[in-house]
């Protein structure tokens, strides 16, 4: 087994086990910390796929900011008892799990059977080399071909920021005007 494949299997195992723990562990704070571990695993998987810049951004954005917000909110709630961790009813729960498992099987089967029909495109748009070259190409692509999406994203973020401040200052919010 080469180092690359060993690394993949190790990271895949860590990510999957952490992902399962997010769903199965009853204490929500442990759940959030397991999700953080999963994010770090996913970031490492991005690095094995050669997307170093995206791996770094994943660490900064997800593992460093979004999940810290989740953990902070959970600690503020300070829930002493969890009334019902999982949904009531064993039969409905089993049906849900069975549906999800079937979907997983469909997806995995579909991928395995259709991979050989996929062709690589004739033109290559990326030189998968050192991180800096790829970052430069990524930036160029973002600002030329996807400029509309980029600007729309900027406007979306502005709207979201204003919306969250408005939510906090509304009648039931944390910073409501009395």
């Amino acid at each position, binding site marked *: 087994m080469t180092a690359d494949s060993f690394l993949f299997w190790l990271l895949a195992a860590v990510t999957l086990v952490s992902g399962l723990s997010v769903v199965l562990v009853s204490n929500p704070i442990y759940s959030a910390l397991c999700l953080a571990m999963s994010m770090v695993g996913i970031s490492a998987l991005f690095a094995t796929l050669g997307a170093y810049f995206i791996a770094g*951004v994943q660490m900064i954005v997800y593992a460093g*900011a979004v999940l*810290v917000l989740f953990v902070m909110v959970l600690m503020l709630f300070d829930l002493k008892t969890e009334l019902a961790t999982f949904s009531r009813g064993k039969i409905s729960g089993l049906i849900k799990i069975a549906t999800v498992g079937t979907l997983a099987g469909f997806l995995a089967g579909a991928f395995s059977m259709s991979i050989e029909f996929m062709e690589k495109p004739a033109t290559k748009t990326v030189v998968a080399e*050192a991180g800096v070259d790829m970052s430069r190409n990524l930036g160029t692509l973002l600002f030329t071909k996807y400029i509309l999406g980029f600007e729309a994203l900027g406007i979306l973020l502005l709207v979201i920021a204003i919306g969250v401040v408005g939510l906090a200052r509304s009648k039931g919010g944390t910073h409501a005007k009395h």
Partner: protein
Amino acid sequence: MGSDAFEITVNCIKLVLVFLLMVQAVPILVWLERRGSGFIQNRFGPNRVGPLGLMQLLADAVKFLTKEEFSPKAATKLLFYAAPVFALIPGTLGFAAIPLGSPLKWGDYTFAIQGYDIGVGIVFILGVSSLAAYTILMAGWGSGNKYALMGALRASAQTISYELALGLSIVGIIMMYGTFNLSEMIAAQQGTMHFQAFGNTIATSWLPNWGIFYQPLAAVLFFAATFAESNRLPFDLAEGEAELVAGFHTEYGGFKMLLFFIGEYGHMMVASGLMATFFLGGYNIPYTTTEQVYQFFLGFVESANAASALTSLAHFIMFTVKLGIFLWIFIWVRWTLPRFRYDQLMDLGWKTMLPWALANTILSALVIFAVSHSW
């Protein structure tokens, strides 16, 4: 890691040495802090144990190691014990990515004098240093103490707020040097100041080619943001003694407390290393390029290997001096400025530093665009 066994072993030993370097610098820093703060406050620091009080830290370490190991009754054991161990991770990973000296050419091999050379250097370092918030949160929650939790929430909110100003103030430098890689940034700061503007090369010989002369505002913002990131005064309300006992590490004693301090000093070292790399030319000796230093040493010794080794050593010593300057400034500021109140702190981060960092980014982009065309 390397192509053959020799290179792999040397790289592994290098990783261990860089880790040990960071950990062993902590006692020296603590001594510096206690003596230095003593002199600033017009008193002697510890000066009984050993010459100049240097053995005080050894005595302290023995004291910490022999203390009773306890945990509070209301504590969540797993998080309580995991948090101090986690404190070491961001500082160690970040410090290993900073170049400490010029690359050493030994025969056919080239060894970079750093833990690992990463193409997207600064993005990686920002990513791992943002993991520091988890240490604080785990320690605060795991203590089972209301006041520790409050301190932890405040400290982590402060951390994620100042990460923004930290990242944005660096964007100007990244645009100017056109790379994320720290070694390339240092290589671009060699020699005396020269740059291209409007098609001509402007060069002066009385200034080194450091980043601080190109981006002074970014230097000030970055330095202030790193104070907030490592929870040092004047931004350490979360662990301020008068307000919250000791904040998120109230319930920790003994060796676990030492680990928190190693983590905090590790953070300081990464911050000082980054300041030296971006703004003070990294390991470069001022006014010289790496090639000039190499030729200088080649005049003394015969073999190219030994000259390269001496060059790396000289650069490493220079980097240590610059690191020491910034670490001393960290300690100096701690005993000079009063502490910020929490709302003043958050206002400063969001309403002052973030807009200034954005303005710096926009201005840098405009200037770089304007001077790159010969009008």
